């Protein structure tokens, strides 16, 4: 059943997308800022994963906690050092700042790694799991599963840890949060760190699935933006749904209508934005001109 195969691949990819998009949507939920540098964080993590694998032959999956930590720290530093100074000027300027970060990172990566494709090819790179008629390539399978697991872990953390609760409280009701002693600065920094961390994990997963080079960050800006818009700015469940839709539609289109796949998705995004500016499941209510 070819369609099942296609769907399965789409869902696995959707898992990875969901992880990455959750990072973007989390940052948005707390900070009202779209992290357009997520793509560059992703590529950063992927390329360094490749480098370590290339130098030391370490199994890439083992690098997940390492890259998660490194990117998380980087995200925290970027927030405390740069973003916090710019957010008072409004979302437009903050997005610009993140573009600057994305460009600087891309340039840096270009200098270090050159503009050539890099591929991580661990032993299982060409293997697959066969379930009946389904052929699930191992890299995709592992990525999808790991992506989903990390996403669940993040969700649980947000739900049941104090830091996570504080973060959700800050996002929902900044004044109410301040009332009980929650520092919005710390919450925002944490959101940024987690957001970057998702890119850290995603980068490792990406590295074992596809070849990467620095400029691929632009593909990701578009994809992640689309998912977050589709799912609604600030809603993690919405981002998951959006990610699944993207994953499946990309898989379907790649199988049946290769050229138009991306266009269809972005066309849908644009239409949704035009008529529901807060996304499908958006939580934000913005003032209208009438206010």
């Amino acid at each position: 059943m070819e369609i099942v195969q296609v769907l399965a691949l789409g869902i696995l990819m959707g898992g990875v997308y969901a992880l990455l998009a959750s990072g973007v949507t989390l940052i948005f939920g707390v900070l009202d800022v779209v992290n357009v540098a997520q793509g560059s964080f992703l590529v950063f993590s992927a390329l360094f994963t490749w480098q370590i694998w290339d130098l030391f032959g370490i199994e890439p999956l083992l690098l997940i906690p390492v890259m998660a930590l490194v990117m998380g720290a980087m995200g925290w530093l970027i927030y405390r050092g740069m973003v916090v100074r710019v957010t008072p000027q409004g979302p437009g300027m903050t997005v610009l700042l993140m573009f600057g970060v994305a460009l600087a990172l891309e340039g840096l990566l270009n200098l270090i790694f050159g503009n050539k494709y890099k591929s991580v090819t661990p032993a299982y790179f060409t293997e697959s799991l066969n379930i009946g008629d389904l052929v699930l390539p191992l890299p995709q399978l592992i990525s999808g599963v790991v992506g989903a697991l990390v996403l669940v872990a993040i969700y649980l953390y947000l739900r049941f840890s104090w830091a996570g609760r504080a973060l959700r409280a800050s996002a929902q009701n900044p004044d109410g949060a301040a009332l009980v002693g929650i520092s919005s600065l710390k919450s925002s920094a944490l959101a940024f760190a987690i957001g970057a961390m998702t890119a850290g994990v995603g980068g490792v997963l990406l590295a074992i699935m596809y070849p990467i080079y620095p400029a691929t960050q632009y593909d990701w800006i578009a994809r992640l933006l689309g998912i977050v818009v589709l799912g609604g700015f600030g809603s993690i469940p919405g981002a998951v749904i959006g990610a699944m839709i993207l994953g499946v539609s990309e898989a379907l289109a790649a199988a049946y209508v290769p050229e138009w796949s991306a266009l269809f998705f972005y066309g849908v995004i644009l239409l949704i934005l035009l008529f529901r500016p807060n996304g499908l499941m958006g939580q934000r209510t913005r003032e209208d001109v009438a206010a």
Partner: protein
Amino acid sequence: MSALKRPSILVPLIALVLFILVPIAVPDSQYEQSVILWCFLFAIMASGWNLISGLAGYVSLGHSVYLGIGMYTGGILAKAWGVDSIYLMPLGAIVAGLVALVIGAVVLRTRSHSFVIITIAVLLSFLLLAANLKWLTGGSDGLIVKQPSWAKELGNTPYYYVLLGLLVLTIALCAFVMRSRLGAGLVAIRNDEGKAASIGINTTVYKVTAYTLSALPFGAAGAVWGQYLGFVNPIGAFAILASVYLVLAALMGGRGTLWGPVIGGFLVALFQEFSTRWSGGVSSRVLIMGVILILVVMFMPSGLLPTIKKAVERRRTRGSAVKFIDQASIAASTSVVDTSAIAARDQGKAHQGDTILEVRNLVKTFGGVTAVDNVSMTVQRGTITGLIGPNGSGKTTLFNCMTGTYQPTSGEVLLSGEDITRAKIWTRAHDGLGRTFQITRLFKSMTVLDNLVAPLERTSAAEMVAGRYAGDEVDRAREILAFMGLQEFEKQNAAALSFGQQKLVELAQVLMLRPSIILLDEPASGINPTLIDKLATVIRRLNEAGTTVLIVEHNIPLVLSLCDHIHVLAEGKILTQGTPTEIRNDPNVIEAYLGPDHLLEAPHA
């Protein structure tokens, strides 16, 4: 950015002459010309972008889409008609403008902050359209644009002069907009869009106009740029980097100013060129530009020109005493002034005594709470009417339904018999309904005079393109200021005034609309008793000149002394209405304010 009377045109003129001379005077300058061409392009784009994003404050991060549209228009038509794309520049502009008009009309209806994201999405969508519509655009491979028909020895020089000309035109367009009422309205929108709407600015029309105009230079430049490059392909035409760089250019130079984007455009183009040549390649360029963008956004977000200007001004005013603005002195001046400046527009019509504002069966609920519960009331023309009630009585909500800030859940609001329940806020202003705000909302970046000439009595194209000081607005504004005793504050920045002065200025602003009724939102809150007396005098004079006034207030003594008729709201319903004496002695009113008896249950603790 206050308007300059006669800007120093000398420096730009000299620069223009120099640029004209370069190809003529400097032999073999093809390389230099090509670098300057990029400078021109970025200056053109940054200036165009400035119209919507600098003036109006709607930051677009995908504006190079219109360059791409121009490139494809030029490329496709040059091929189809066999002409040099230089002749297609006007068409490029028109096509880009039309696309912008359509997109703008849909996207700019609301103030959704996802505007930034939408602009990126539009860019990406066109990228994909270009890559997929093979029959039209040549798909991902793009189109080859044939060489121009002029002699090879001329090289790039024709492009040079064409783009120089386009730059001059673009700057002229920007200068024109900035001096016009359109420009003033856009700045008002950037300062406070809701307030701009309440003084009669049709914010949708203004935003869409600015957005459309901003696309024209892009389209024109794009039409010729494709031929200059020799080919048009999706990635080159719709590159997000171009959008980011042009925004950087405008930011660096100073968005919202006339010359800032031009200077910034030159700087960005030069940075790109030098970083490619001297640091060995594309990677470093991207890194350097990224770092520059970060530094500019973090440390110099207002840009070079405004920062320099501020530093110069600070040096100039150092040492001169700060003029002490005294609240009491304003209160003292009572000028005998011709009240025609403040006369209501329908003074003279024999309407006295009829209903000017009516609310019928108005209900407003928020979630599960009914703030206004089936309220019906009228305001008679020519009166000063008060609307009072304790906290939570719904009077503010009712007030906001009248002004259009809230849409009622059900019921109607009628102005002189016409149903305005669903009318846009600026339409209400055009129909003669003016309002002030409890916490004043003046346009902080403008002077008092600029604030006063901003209101519009109608939406008209002719007025939009007129200079912002054209017509009799300035004279009327000065008369109204004199009437208030504020004439010396004409050139003051609105943000520098005290709260009480701001209240008077805001009232003066509303008067420019020649409203038949003014709704005052807690005018006495936050000002001292002397100023309250002054305010009461002003209101009485206004009323004598024919303006109906509706006041929502907590200061009951003021209301009792000022109003002809008073409505009292409690718990979302009309409690009673009557003359001040009736209200003052009505035990129900006293109860409503002091607290109902039936809440007494337990004995005193």
